[in-house]
């Protein structure tokens, strides 16, 4: 099939079939490997999902075990099959884990671990199932900045929580000022973007 149709269609068809058949076996083997890797990723997500549900129950005395059963069902539902990987099930499982933490009142170390597990679960839940080996490695590398940011943020918040802070009106004022400053930094950017749109159109 080099852009033209051969004179004898039957002979041409036979040649085309031979050519394709040669690659078929290789591609099937690759597809089998991809399926195996996809099962591995799903297992990793299941471990993280199980962790976010089990950790608050195992470490906190106030939580009820039946909550973990419902959470485990939600995690399983989000991982059973590609068609079942709807955004709703995974989101509900994550929200359930937060709910368990609120009820269980675990310690800060457990909450830090829970937050990181939650992040890992949500990242893995979003992984494409049909990636080949090198693609999966690249995808994992791509998640490294997010994981690093998560760990850093957890460490910073953990350290801040360790510092004893007295009740003070000045701190409240400082907090409000920081929030206003954050909004002030963000909003002019939006205005500039909006203002630049008609100019661009006129330029065209």
């Amino acid at each position, binding site marked *: *099939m*080099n*852009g*033209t*149709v051969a004179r004898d*269609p*039957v002979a*041409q*068809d036979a040649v*085309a079939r031979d050519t*394709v058949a040669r*690659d*078929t076996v290789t*591609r099937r083997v690759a597809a089998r490997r*991809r399926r195996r890797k996809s099962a591995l990723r799903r297992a990793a997500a299941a471990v993280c999902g199980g962790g976010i549900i089990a950790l608050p129950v195992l470490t906190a005395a106030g939580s009820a075990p039946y909550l973990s059963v419902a959470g485990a069902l939600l995690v399983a539902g989000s991982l059973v099959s590609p068609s079942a*990987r*709807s*955004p709703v099930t*995974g*989101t509900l499982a*994550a929200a359930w884990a*937060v*709910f368990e*933490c*609120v009820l269980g009142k*675990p310690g*800060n170390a457990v*909450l*830090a671990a*829970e*937050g*990181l597990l*939650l*992040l890992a679960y*949500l*990242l893995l*839940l*979003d992984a*494409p*199932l*049909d*990636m080949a080996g090198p*693609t999966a490695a*690249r*995808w994992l*590398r*791509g*998640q490294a*900045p*997010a994981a690093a*940011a*998560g*760990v*850093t*943020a*957890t460490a*910073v*918040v*953990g350290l801040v*929580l360790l510092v004893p802070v007295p009740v003070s009106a000045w701190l409240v004022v400082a907090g409000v000022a920081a929030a206003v400053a954050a909004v002030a930094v963000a909003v002019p950017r939006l205005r500039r973007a909006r203002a630049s749109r008609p100019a661009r159109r006129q330029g065209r």
Partner: protein
Amino acid sequence: MRGTEAGERAVTVPSGAQPVTWRAAPRLRRLALVAVLSVLAAVLTRQAGLLLLAAPALAVLALGGRGGRPGTLDVGVTTPVSRCFEDEDVEVTATLAVPVDEVTFHVEPGQTVRLADGDMTQTAVDEDAAQARWTLRPGTWGRRIPCTVAVRCRVSGLWQAELTVRAEPLEVFPHPPPARASLVPADLLRRIGEHTARAPGPGIEFAGIRGYLPGDRLRDLNWAVTSRTGRPHVNQRAALRAADLVIMVDAFSELGPLGDTSLDVSIRGAAGLAQAYLRTGDRVGVVVLGGVLRWLGPAPGFRQFFRIVEMAFSVRFQSAVTPDLGRVPRSALPPRAVAVLFSPLLDQRAIGAIADLRQRGVSLVVVDVLRHEPPAQPGFPLSSLAVRLWRLDRDALRASLAGLGVPVLGWDGGTGLEAALAPLRGRPLAATRP
């Protein structure tokens, strides 16, 4: 594809750069929900420790906002060929020219097109020019779009854009069944290769000996007879002629499942017959009955084969017009041509056209391509009687056509045409008016 998660209706666009709108990906929504829930819970329950749940999610959200999102996506869905035959494998390649973090291609084969090889959904991560390949196998002839490819791009995992791109139309030619040029006009003798005419003329085959006439070539002198009789004699040769075959296709009615209708069988048979005759150097033309009357004058060569099958692409045209065969020019339907009509013999206009052609003295053969009888309803005893009457009616029709000098042969498309045309091999076809 999970692209429908966004709840937006997919609009198919041709290949090329397309402007896109970036929307929040499911990951962004999940992270935002976890962060909001955790912060709310921390504020309401006065547990500052719950901020530790929100911290990683907020950090990832803050990080993802920096990702550059291209305003247009240049997606191409290409095939290396623009033509192929039925059941022939065609490789389709989808390419995204813009670098994005993650791109997922999902192929949706067109009608009667099967995915022969390759995963339906393929993902590329962090590539400058992401590609996905599939092998498709079109099952039915026609000019059709082989597939559409849904492309989902993600930046930072938090923003996504979706695009559905259709491939360029592919001309799928009917797979010609094996056939031989066994039907020959009555005025031609059958030989290997070209046809030898009964009339003398320039050729190779020996036709006789006659006395020398002024203008005869010296190399044609038969020296043995000349020396025996004492008067010059020359050898006569039979003229070489090519047969004219006009294939007619009845496109008035179409019955059967998609890809295996009576019209599909007709077109495949026409392609097989055209190929067989063109191989032996004959001239082949085509006349399509149905809708607008279309024709192609007989011509030799393999180019004519492709002209014929390309013409067949437009035969599916619903119309109530009765064809006026008087409009077909003499060059498209030569007087001594053999005409082969592929028809399910269901439409009265086609049957009328057969009678009209015989009145004009055309040597006509009808190939009945109807494969399915009307099913009898088990609960109604009269329905089986109706089917029997229908069969008798068909037999009567065949007999009346045979009375006109039009042989009717049956062919179901499952075997080669050679077996179907075997009853007429060596038999002269009626070439005079009834």
